[in-house]
């Protein structure tokens, strides 16, 4: 089997926590990650006898918006089903999910050239969490159940096996996150467990149409881990097959500490979940007019926005800005106020994105005029931007108040440059001896003495004096 060309086949199951105030079937608030155990629970999510689930309208709406943004079909009838299994983190002995009539089917997500088909998007409830006293489950002397997460709504987004590499799988997850944030369906924060990606991975001989035996990976907490876990698993499967073995269909966990996958649960004897329609919740008849309202209210989707931005900007900038709805909104609003596209995009990517602080498009346009026109230095502009974002005041006001100016006058800069050369004999000597980077040390000293100096002009003056 050595020397075989393998093709990687990946399908993704992504669980996303929709943005709701309360749980899927009761009024409990959604707990923060660090909330003390069992503080966000009631008789419904505890599964006490006699209580009933009532679906959360906001979760249904978030799921429908997601489905629409993924170009899914929304069937007229949808229903909830019970998935039956016993586990201490599952208070009712069944999970309310959707089986054969999910909220939506047959969608797609465009990843550049690759079209990833979406099989279904459905709603379900999360389970609780087990906390084991001891370092390992099988060595635990006591186990505790925390039901804060039990009943938290989850959308499950299932793709067809259309992805062909770890890169594509990561891009898919990133794109999904961008989309969910753009439409406001979820904050989709992986570290906070709001987006959990579970890739199903198999490999096959290049050119084959048959699918190989797949494994499903869990416990992935970041895009980087997703990428690494898939690559590890692909290599593992290659080794198994190339050494004459067979891949076992199973669920494998990703160990961040050991940077490898490990077997969690064999699916050879698949559990029988005895799905049947949830009798406590009537089937939902989705109002077509409502769905059309939701469709009409969707914002411009990231892929469309990116292609529109790509008409104005280099691809890298267009993608970087298009990936974040707030940044793209800021960009377009500043440009609409007359700011030059490229300078604005660069400013946003370099100065706004890292700080995460936003001001108005008008303020940004004004700031870019000030810095582009040479009235202030870039350092000053950065200060002015942050202050403007914090206080909402205009950059012009801030510049005036702080007396920000930029000196570009050559005679003034010459006096400064001479002082710097006098104060730094070693750097000067180094430079003259051919160490060009010594100029940077001299510039740094100059900017420290005169933050208002125009860096470009000062650089030229320094170089001229040294030369």
């Amino acid at each position, binding site marked *: 089997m050595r020397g075989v060309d393998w093709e990687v086949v990946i399908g993704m199951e992504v669980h996303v926590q929709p943005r709701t105030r309360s749980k899927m079937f009761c009024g409990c608030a959604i707990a923060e990650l660090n909330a003390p155990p069992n503080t966000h629970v009631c008789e419904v999510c505890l599964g006490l006898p006699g*209580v009933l689930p009532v679906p959360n309208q906001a979760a249904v709406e978030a799921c429908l918006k997601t489905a629409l943004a993924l170009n899914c079909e929304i069937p007229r009838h949808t229903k909830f089903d019970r998935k039956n299994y016993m586990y*201490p983190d599952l208070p009712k*002995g069944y999970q309310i999910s959707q089986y054969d009539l999910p909220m939506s089917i047959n969608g797609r997500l465009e990843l550049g050239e690759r079209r990833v088909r979406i099989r279904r998007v459905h709603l379900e409830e999360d389970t609780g969490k087990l906390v084991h006293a001891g370092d390992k489950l099988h060595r635990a002397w006591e186990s505790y159940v925390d039901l804060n997460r039990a009943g938290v709504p989850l959308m499950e987004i299932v793709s067809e096996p259309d992805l062909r590499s770890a890169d594509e799988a990561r891009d898919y997850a990133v794109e999904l996150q961008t989309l969910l944030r753009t439409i406001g369906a979820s904050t989709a924060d992986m570290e906070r467990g709001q987006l959990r990606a579970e890739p199903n991975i198999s490999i096959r001989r290049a050119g084959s149409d048959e699918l190989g035996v797949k494994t499903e990976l869990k416990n992935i907490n970041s895009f980087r881990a997703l990428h690494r876990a898939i690559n590890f698993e692909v290599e593992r499967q290659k080794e198994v097959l190339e050494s004459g073995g067979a891949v076992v269909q199973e669920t494998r966990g990703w160990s961040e500490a050991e940077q490898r996958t490990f077997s969690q649960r064999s699916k050879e004897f698949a559990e029988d979940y005895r799905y049947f329609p949830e009798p406590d919740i009537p089937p939902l008849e989705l109002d077509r007019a409502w769905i059309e309202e939701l469709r009409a209210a969707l914002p411009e989707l990231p892929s469309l926005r990116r292609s529109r931005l790509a008409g104005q900007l280099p691809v890298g900038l267009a993608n970087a800005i298009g990936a974040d709805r707030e940044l793209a909104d800021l960009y377009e609003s500043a440009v609409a106020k007359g700011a030059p596209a490229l300078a604005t995009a660069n400013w946003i990517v370099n100065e706004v994105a890292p700080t995460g602080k936003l001001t108005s498009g008008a303020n940004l346009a004004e700031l870019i005029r000030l810095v582009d026109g040479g009235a202030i230095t870039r350092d000053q502009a950065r200060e002015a931007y942050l202050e403007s974002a914090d206080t909402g005041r205009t950059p012009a006001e801030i510049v005036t108040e702080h007396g920000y100016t930029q000196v570009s006058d050559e005679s003034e800069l010459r006096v400064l440059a001479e002082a710097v050369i006098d104060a730094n004999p070693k750097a000067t000597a180094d430079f003259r001896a051919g160490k060009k980077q010594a100029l940077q040390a001299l510039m740094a000293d100059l900017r420290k003495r005169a933050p208002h100096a125009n860096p470009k002009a000062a650089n030229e003056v320094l170089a001229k004096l040294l030369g």
Partner: protein
Amino acid sequence: MTSGDLTELTIKEATHLLRLGSISASDLVTAHVERIEQLDARVKAYLRMTQEVWERQAEEADRKLRDGDAPPLAGIPIAIKDVLCVKGVETTAGSQILRGFKPPYTATAVQRLFDAGAVMLGVTNCDEFAMGSSTENSSYFPTRNPHDLLRVPGGSSGGSAAAVAAGEAMISLGTDTGGSIRQPAALCGVVGMKPTYGRVSRYGLIAFASSLDQIGPFARSVDDAALVLSLMSGLDPLDATSSQRPGMEVLNNYGAGVKGMRLGVPREYYDVEGIEPGVKAAIDAALLILRREGAEIVDVSLPHTDYGLAAYYIIAPAECSSNLARFDGVKYGLSEEDSPNVTELYTQTRRKGFGTEVRRRVMLGTYALSSGYYDAYYLKAQKVRTLIKRDFDAAFEKCDAIVSATSPTVAFPIGTKTQDPLSMYLCDVLTLGGNLAGLPGISVPCGTSDGLPVGLQVLGPQWGENVCLRVARAYEEASEIRAEVATPSPLQGRGSG
């Protein structure tokens, strides 16, 4: 007025006296408690008395009566079936697995009656998780029929039926999944009503089969049953299957009499296998009275009746197998804590906590839902259910209400059916169709057979509780048959009636 008299009153009579001030809510409660103390060692209708609750509620009722702002059930003593949660009151569904469980909430239907001024006397016995037709499946003890202590009161709401029949409560609540209100009402000679599915919130009802369960009242008159039902009906935001229809509509026009109504007699019910001649005779007599009152008796057919029992015994166990999964010994109730691991904890807790019939149904239901059997059992049963609904739809094209016996037999001796589950299941053959189709039904006393009560069942179309009540009330009035309070004597089986 003697305490005996006070325990024979209807709500209407009691309310009149309470408002006149000739009796107090406390008098009424005391009379019932004394009656329970005197009789219940024999009848065994109650599992638990709730003295703290009745003292508080009677005091409040008396205060409101004095202040002149008494709600409609102020001071009316009520008994509650052990499957309906009452905050702080041990509620066990007749099972050992819930021993000691005190819910932190009250069932919506119960709360509405409390809000209407009802005074809770205690918790009544029932078949474990409402699975049974004789109350012999209670994990505590069997309840006895007040008309004959050697016979069963019916079930599963046998305790609630017996309490009302024996004057140990003025009204009570039961639940009906396949006939568990109507059949014991018939066997104990009282009125019992199962509403349309969705009419009464199921919130706080410990589920047996969620798509079939409904809560309903027992009373000694149709008027009392109607009033209680109207007060607990209506939308509940805590139950997604509860209807938005106004609860009070169950009373629409229900006193209008049967003149001009078409009453359907399904031949499959009239000649049901195993129907006792005495029961049939009582039904014939009832039909005669209804015809005399101006109703037209028409022949209708429910052709899929034969498949109803089979479909019911797939669907109900399937739902129960899932509903009962939560009783795992981890969070509340019985827990075999010394088990070596969690699987053993589940197994031992459930083996010890569930009785034979419950285990049988959990296993039946688990099997019916299993991969490879689902289509042959559960799915097919659902198709039968649809056909049964269509049967009723077709029948209601030809008639306004359907009348039949409630139970093919009168109360049977204790112990005669416990060894043969199928014969027990046949008790519900005339009632479970109403559950599968989600329809309202009432059982009203219609004389006796061999000295034991017979019930007349009236089934109505969906949301047609008022139709059922109208027929039942007209019959009650014309027949002059009343749900008499039974006082069983200590030494003999057959009571003094």
